[in-house]
């Protein structure tokens, strides 16, 4: 028998999991035998981002349990099993499988269940709730044969559900009993604007609708009849009318529960039985159920603290302020949003043109902030929340907190210096300013470092900007100067050099060096300058003034391999190639005895060509109708495609044709790093577009555009940038996106990392590209038009010019190849000989 304390956690959701993590993080988990029992088929996952499941369809992406977490920490995790009975006298829990588990401490984290209003017909087919991955799978399956979907409930989760249904391609309705959407968090003015913005997105909003019954529809499966006589037809119905605590086990074992449900707990999260704790949405503290994730996590930490015998943390209520993005609309609510505090006064700012609503609620004396509502733009959330939580004295004119700064000044804002160390910066993960400062003292240098070591900004991300400010302030205080110079020759960032070139109309590296640099340059600044000059002016890159700048591969328009030979990739736009084309490529490969391999980008790579062979190979490829594939450049590589609607039974658009158009448009564009794109002909996504810098997926109505994905070393799913757009709009957005990236990225920074570092992220990018918030779109359009208009096949230009061809001689004084380049036959083709094989000197194959 073990003398360890037995901990039994009932319910393996995010809160239950946080409890276990807190025990493990305390370093005392070896004092306990930990068992967690969950009735869902999978361990804890992130319900807050449930809607994201619709974008990836991968349950794994929501998984909150790190691989090996259970086994590494000796935790028994059971799924698909439900505790049905607790014997408090003997401290034993029984499950639906008849298993019995003894415990010393029992933690109830059973969460809540969605409330379904008891209207007649609520249990008809195609009626769902929105809570688990299984619910989402059922909704998705039903949507395949549906045209219309409706959500009952216009709260936070209801609008999330509406987004999911809209993304499934259904005509979408939201039905709300109250006079406005998000009635709890948002006031009347904010609700009106929110409604308008949601309706602009094509979702119909019906407020003050009391559903009386659900019966058979005429055109759809259901017909909803409302108290005011109105009717609405829909194929799918999702109920999102609030939650009820899952307290059945507590009732059955006679623990104290609230009048309207919820397991009563004290500040240590203990129930009326001190050996039993309750945390999360099943718990009732101070007469209140907390239906947000952050308070649930606070309860989990408090309970864990008490279980390990510390009493450092207790749960004493939580701030219910929230900031989120609903269907692309920023919504934030802080504290007393409805100004119900006696004497409270409000300031409201409404910009109907930009569709922004901001309200702050202040104390009668105007000294302190009580609450706020922000719709359409919530950049001030972090600052306002800090004012409210830390009772920071407001400026003389509190309205300056929400009024736009018209003179270009930075607005009032809040210097992070004004915050006390205890100020909570990340409420999701309970990270204070003091925690962040300590991490910086310990060596964190970037927001990424801080995310990794404190978890700040890793859940909802609402505090990212604030985390960045704390970081910068702390680094400055420590006297750390972050050197962002490109190299020793240029005291500028890549972005600054780009602007110097563009604004100063600098046309060569020598001119750039003379005006803005020093020394001779190096292998960092020369290729960077070459890339910028090419992005801006698009000259032939082997012009004498540019040739010396080019990186290894660009210098000879081919990819250097480990033995000094090159690989050659002719362009096959969209992966399409004729039989004659394929034969011509094969003949060239055969003639020069090149190793042949199919690339990940749907084309053919020919390896083992010597420098002097390159122009001859290209002469033959060009006469067969091929052109440079730019596989050597930091530029567009390929636009991968699936076969699309022309052949595929499921395709809804011509993905190959679109891929070819895009590849031909952007081929040759020099950029900070290589660029990959893909076009899928339907939602099955066979072209894997979401792993590309630019991904396009066909929909019934047009195209969904995804940006900033990446395979490679650090995979990143692309973000959905715009939905159901037509071809012209798509091309316009891609034009602007690429040029904006070319303008602002660091050297060798992929779009994925660029996006991760872009302050304001995807929203900011949308504002720049779609709303032209920086007023640069006309320039971006013109710059891309110039690049497209001045495209040339660099290999064609090269072989037409004998002076250029001379650059490809293996020796300046001898018409020979490098005889030290030798190969070995393997699987019917050549490969470079190893040093040992060269010494053994048998079966070596010379250059063809």
């Amino acid at each position: 028998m073990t003398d360890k304390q037995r901990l039994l956690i009932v319910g393996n959701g995010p809160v239950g999991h946080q409890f276990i993590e807190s025990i493990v993080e305390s370093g005392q988990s070896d004092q306990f035998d930990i068992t967690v029992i969950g009735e869902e088929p999978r361990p804890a996952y992130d319900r807050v981002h449930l809607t994201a499941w619709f974008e990836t369809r991968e349950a794994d992406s929501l998984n909150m349990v790190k691989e090996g977490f259970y086994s590494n920490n000796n935790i028994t995790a059971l799924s698909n099993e439900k505790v049905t009975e607790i014997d408090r006298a003997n401290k034993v829990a029984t499950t639906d499988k008849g298993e019995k588990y003894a415990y010393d401490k029992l933690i109830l984290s059973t969460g809540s269940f969605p409330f379904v209003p008891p209207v007649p017909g609520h249990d008809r087919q195609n009626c769902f709730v929105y809570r688990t991955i299984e619910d989402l799978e059922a909704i998705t399956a039903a949507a395949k044969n549906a045209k219309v979907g409706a959500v009952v409930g216009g709260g936070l989760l209801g609008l999330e559900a509406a987004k999911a249904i809209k993304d499934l391609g259904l005509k979408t309705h939201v039905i709300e009993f109250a006079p406005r959407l998000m009635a709890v968090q948002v006031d009347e003015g904010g609700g009106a604007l929110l409604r308008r913005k949601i309706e602009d997105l094509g979702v119909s909003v019906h407020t003050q609708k009391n559903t009386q019954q659900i019966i058979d529809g005429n055109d759809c499966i259901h017909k909803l009849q409302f108290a005011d006589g109105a009717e609405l037809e829909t194929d799918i119905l999702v109920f999102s009318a609030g939650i009820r605590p899952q307290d059945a086990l507590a009732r059955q074992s006679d623990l104290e529960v609230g009048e309207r449900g919820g397991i009563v707990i004290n500040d240590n999260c203990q129930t009326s039985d001190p050996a039993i704790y309750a945390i999360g949405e099943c718990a009732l503290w101070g007469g209140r159920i907390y239906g947000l994730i952050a308070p649930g996590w606070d309860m989990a930490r408090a309970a864990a603290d008490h279980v390990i015998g510390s009493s450092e943390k207790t749960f004493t209520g939580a701030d219910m302020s929230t900031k989120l993005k609903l269907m692309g609309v920023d919504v934030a609510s802080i504290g007393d949003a409805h100004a119900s505090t006696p004497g409270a006064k409000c300031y409201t700012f409404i910009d109907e043109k930009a569709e922004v609503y901001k309200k702050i609620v202040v104390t009668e004396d105007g000294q302190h902030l009580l609450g706020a509502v922000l719709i359409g733009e919530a950049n001030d959330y972090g600052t306002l929340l800090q004012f409210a939580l830390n009772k920071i004295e407001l400026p003389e004119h509190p309205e300056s907190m929400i009024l736009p700064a018209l003179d270009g000044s930075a607005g009032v804002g809040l210097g992070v210096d004004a915050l006390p160390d205890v100020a909570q910066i990340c409420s999701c993960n309970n990270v204070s300013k003091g925690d962040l400062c300590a991490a910086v003292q310990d060596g964190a240098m970037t927001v990424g470092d801080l995310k990794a070591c404190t978890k700040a900004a890793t859940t909802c991300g609402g505090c990212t900007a604030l985390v960045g400010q704390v970081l910068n302030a702390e680094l400055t205080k420590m006297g750390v100067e972050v050197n962002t110079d490109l190299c020793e020759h240029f005291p500028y960032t890549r972005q600054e050099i780009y602007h110097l070139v563009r604004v100063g109309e600098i046309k060569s590296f020598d001119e750039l060096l003379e005006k803005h640099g020093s020394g001779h340059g190096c292998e960092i600044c020369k290729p960077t300058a070459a890339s910028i000059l090419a992005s801006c002016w698009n000259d032939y890159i082997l012009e004498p003034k540019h040739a010396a700048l080019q990186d290894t591969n660009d210098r000879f328009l081919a990819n250097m391999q480990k033995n000094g030979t090159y690989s050659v990739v002719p362009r096959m736009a969209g992966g399409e190639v004729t039989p004659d084309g394929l034969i011509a490529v094969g003949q060239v490969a055969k003639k020069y005895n090149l190793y042949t391999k199919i690339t990940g980008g749907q084309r053919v790579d020919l390896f083992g060509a010597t420098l002097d062979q390159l122009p001859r190979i290209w002469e033959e490829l060009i006469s067969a109708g091929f052109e440079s594939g730019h596989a050597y450049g930091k530029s567009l590589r390929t636009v991968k495609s699936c076969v699309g609607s022309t052949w595929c039974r499921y395709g809804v658009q011509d993905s190959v044709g679109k891929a070819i158009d895009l590849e031909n448009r952007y081929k040759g564009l020099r950029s900070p790093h290589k660029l990959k794109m893909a076009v899928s002909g339907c939602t099955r996504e066979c072209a894997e577009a979401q792993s590309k810098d630019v991904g396009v997926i066909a929909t019934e109505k047009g195209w969904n555009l995804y940006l900033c994905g990446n395979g490679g070393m650090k995979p990143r799913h692309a973000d959905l940038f715009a939905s159901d757009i037509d071809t012209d709009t798509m091309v316009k957005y891609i034009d602007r996106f690429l040029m904006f990236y070319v303008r602002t990225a660091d050297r060798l920074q992929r779009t994925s990392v660029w996006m991760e570092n872009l302050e304001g992220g995807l929203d900011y990018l949308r504002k720049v590209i779609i709303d032209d918030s920086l007023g640069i779109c006309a320039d971006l359009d013109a710059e891309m038009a110039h690049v497209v208009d001045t495209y040339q096949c660099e290999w064609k230009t090269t072989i037409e010019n004998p002076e250029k061809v001379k650059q490809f001689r293996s020796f300046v004084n001898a018409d020979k190849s490098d005889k030290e380049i030798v190969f070995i036959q393997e699987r019917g083709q050549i490969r470079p000989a190893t040093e040992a094989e060269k010494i053994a000197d048998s079966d070596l194959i010379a250059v063809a």
Partner: protein
Amino acid sequence: MSWTTVCSIDDILPNTGVAALIEEMQVAVFRVDDTIYALANKDPFSNANVLSRGIICSIKGTLVVASPIYKQHFSLEAGQCLEDDSVSIACYEARTEGNSVQIRIAH
């Protein structure tokens, strides 16, 4: 050994290199403005004859070529590797006579 003329100065673009074959030895010949430098063409880290195809750089005042394979730097005047004190490559005398680029290999 006497001076060998390998090419005309116009055969080398400013601030680039070419490879020359002198008695079956591969030599990397670099032109920095109008000055000529010559090193062994073999990159000791990859054993490939590629240094003539590297980018010419100045690192803290020293003229170097960056290997196009793994990017180590070798000084043009002495052949010393900047990243690894124990590695240096052969360095040859080089000059221009009129327009001719000449290399002398000491035996």
